[in-house]
């Protein structure tokens, strides 16, 4: 049973390794440490929101607003830094609590007014994107010494590889989230909530507090991802991160988390994002394959993993 539970994780891992080896054998320069570190730094923002999405999905909900929250946080940061001449660190200290509050409000609507997470976060998605376009329709550039410092900060690794600040932030967040999910009461509560809200309540799980915290955490991570996205692009743009929520959901599913909630692993999501990233890298290296193949391949992968989960959970589902 243990082995079965981890089977999707193993399959994702082996697919990742196999694809990497195929790429390495076909293209010069694919099998380098640099490709690996780029995989992390290019996808750092997606990895971070996917972590938040994993929490939400394990709790049985969904958060469609994360892509827009990235845009909102990016635009807010760039406007505050460029037009109001505030120090970036101060700006982050303002923006992060605001983002968290946004998520907490969505969580409150979902719990207190019994509205469906899908619809509430859909409204949140429009709201965040609307706020972002209201603040600035144009892309706002950031030119601040702090940003140059951040982009110079990192670890030089052999093979011309560079482990940058975004990847470090992601690594820290990952460790934190894994500890929260597997070694704290809050993490257990999230799993319990996803299993069955009613049972969780009867067992004494503070459902209200947990629900609100989950959505707050997801929005916090999305806001952070927005900040990291500004490190990456040196600007804030209201149309950034369109459709990223779907990538995050796809990564969560590929990582073996059930969308019905109650089971899944944070680490699986990381593998899911990396797998999607490596497909993209492969297509870039190939050069002759068109970009739409990414979408089709990811669709097929999704199908494969969903059917796999279905087969694995067959004996469980026939009972319930």
């Amino acid at each position: 049973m243990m082995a079965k539970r981890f089977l999707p994780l193993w399959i994702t891992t082996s697919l990742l390794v196999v694809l990497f080896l195929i790429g390495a054998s076909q293209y010069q320069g694919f099998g380098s440490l640099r490709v690996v570190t780029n995989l992390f730094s290019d996808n750092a923002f997606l990895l971070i929101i996917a972590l938040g999405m994993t929490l939400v999905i394990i709790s049985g909900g969904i958060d469609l607003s994360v892509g827009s929250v990235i845009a909102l946080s990016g635009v807010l940061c760039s406007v505050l830094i460029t037009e109001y001449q505030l120090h970036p660190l101060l700006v982050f200290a303002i923006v992060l609590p605001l983002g968290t509050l946004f998520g907490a409000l969505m969580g409150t609507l979902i719990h207190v007014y019994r509205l469906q997470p899908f619809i509430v976060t859909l409204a949140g998605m429009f709201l965040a994107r609307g706020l972002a376009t209201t603040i600035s329709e144009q892309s706002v550039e950031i030119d601040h010494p702090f940003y140059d410092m951040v982009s110079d900060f990192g670890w030089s690794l052999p093979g011309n590889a560079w482990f940058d600040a975004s990847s470090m932030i992601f690594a820290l967040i990952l460790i934190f989230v894994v500890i929260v999910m597997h070694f704290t009461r809050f993490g257990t509560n999230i799993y319990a909530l996803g299993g069955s809200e009613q049972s969780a309540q009867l067992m004494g799980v503070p459902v209200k507090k947990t629900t609100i915290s989950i959505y707050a955490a997801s929005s916090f991570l999305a806001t952070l991802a927005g900040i990291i996205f500004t490190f990456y692009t040196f600007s804030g743009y209201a149309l950034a991160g369109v459709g990223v929520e779907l990538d995050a959901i796809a990564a969560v599913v590929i990582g073996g988390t059930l969308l019905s909630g109650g089971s899944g692993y944070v680490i699986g999501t990381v593998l899911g994002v990396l797998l999607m990233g490596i497909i993209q890298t492969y297509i870039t290296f190939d050069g002759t394959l068109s970009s739409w193949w990414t979408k089709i391949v990811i669709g097929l992968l999704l199908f494969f993993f969903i059917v796999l989960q279905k087969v694995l959970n067959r004996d469980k589902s026939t009972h319930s």
Partner: protein
Amino acid sequence: MKSSTNNQDQAVSDTPTSNESQPVQLSEQEQALAVAKSARYQAGASNNFGRYLWPICALILLLAVNLVLDPSFFSLSYQDGRIYGSLIDILNRCAPVALLAIGMSVVIATGGIDLSVGAVMAISGAVCANLLLVPDVALVTVLLAGLAVGIVAGLVNGSLVSYLGIQPIVATLLLMVAGRGVAQLINQGQIITFQHDSFAFIGVGNWLGLPMPIWIVIGMLAVTQLLLRKTALGLFIESVGCNASASRYLGINDKAVKSFAYVIAGICAALAGMISAANIQGSDANNAGLWLELDAILAVVIGGASLIGGRFSLVLAITGALIIQTLATTIIVSGLPAKFNLLIKALVILMVLLLQSEKFRKQLKALFTTKSSAKNLGEAK
């Protein structure tokens, strides 16, 4: 999902209750559930006046705002065999979302959701555009091919949901992600344009003074409404949405009913895709129907349907689509910059959602009653 909740209910009532406060809480929950269910079982009852009241009131209110902003808003003129005016414009522009909303409300009634409709629009547009470029292809073939795309997409979604038992959000997410890729593959990444007057007619043509898209929506609405309300099919759909396993025990083929709902959604999406392709006389796989699935879901929800499923009203879904389009027009008429578009839309949606929540309405009522009772007290003094 439905079956699992029922099992939980059973499990809950079976557990021995050691704590004294639990039984009270439990019965409250059960009561709430019973109330919710009895409300849902009035599904399809057309005498449910209140259900129709609010969305239509909202629409009338929005139109009234427009009349205040622009007194000539309701004026219609007849020129060159076609009626012109803002109202016709709204109807014409909301046609794709209205079509999607028809299909979406049927799918949502079965307790599902269809995220793939936007991608299906792109595929059907791409298929039609490419067929039109082939010489000597009859228009009928092109139209049938477009519709076939919708039927195939619906069958794929339907069988994933009902025969493989995959959650609707995930199952349709597949086609949403892969579908746009397929459309780009068909177009080879290009925007395919065509010159074909009779195909363009379904997007920009007029018949009896009204633009063709409006007639297509009316036709689809009439056909679906007749099919669902004059046969038992509508009842089956609502019954499956209320409780799929109970419906199965009653002898309803719940899997076929669910698949059928996705096929309707697919056909509606294909029609919408053909309209938007005919409108621009071309197929843009990247942008055709992009995010329209969300608008369609919103239209259904604004129309008062719950995503839990169990009931549908096509008329209300179309009212929802009209509200969304009228709102967009209102923002333009009011002269506000277009950048406020999304913000206002989000706020209106949040308001509609809150008004639909039982608890919020109670809180509102309590707010007003305490105020009025305080007033009474003041008068008594």
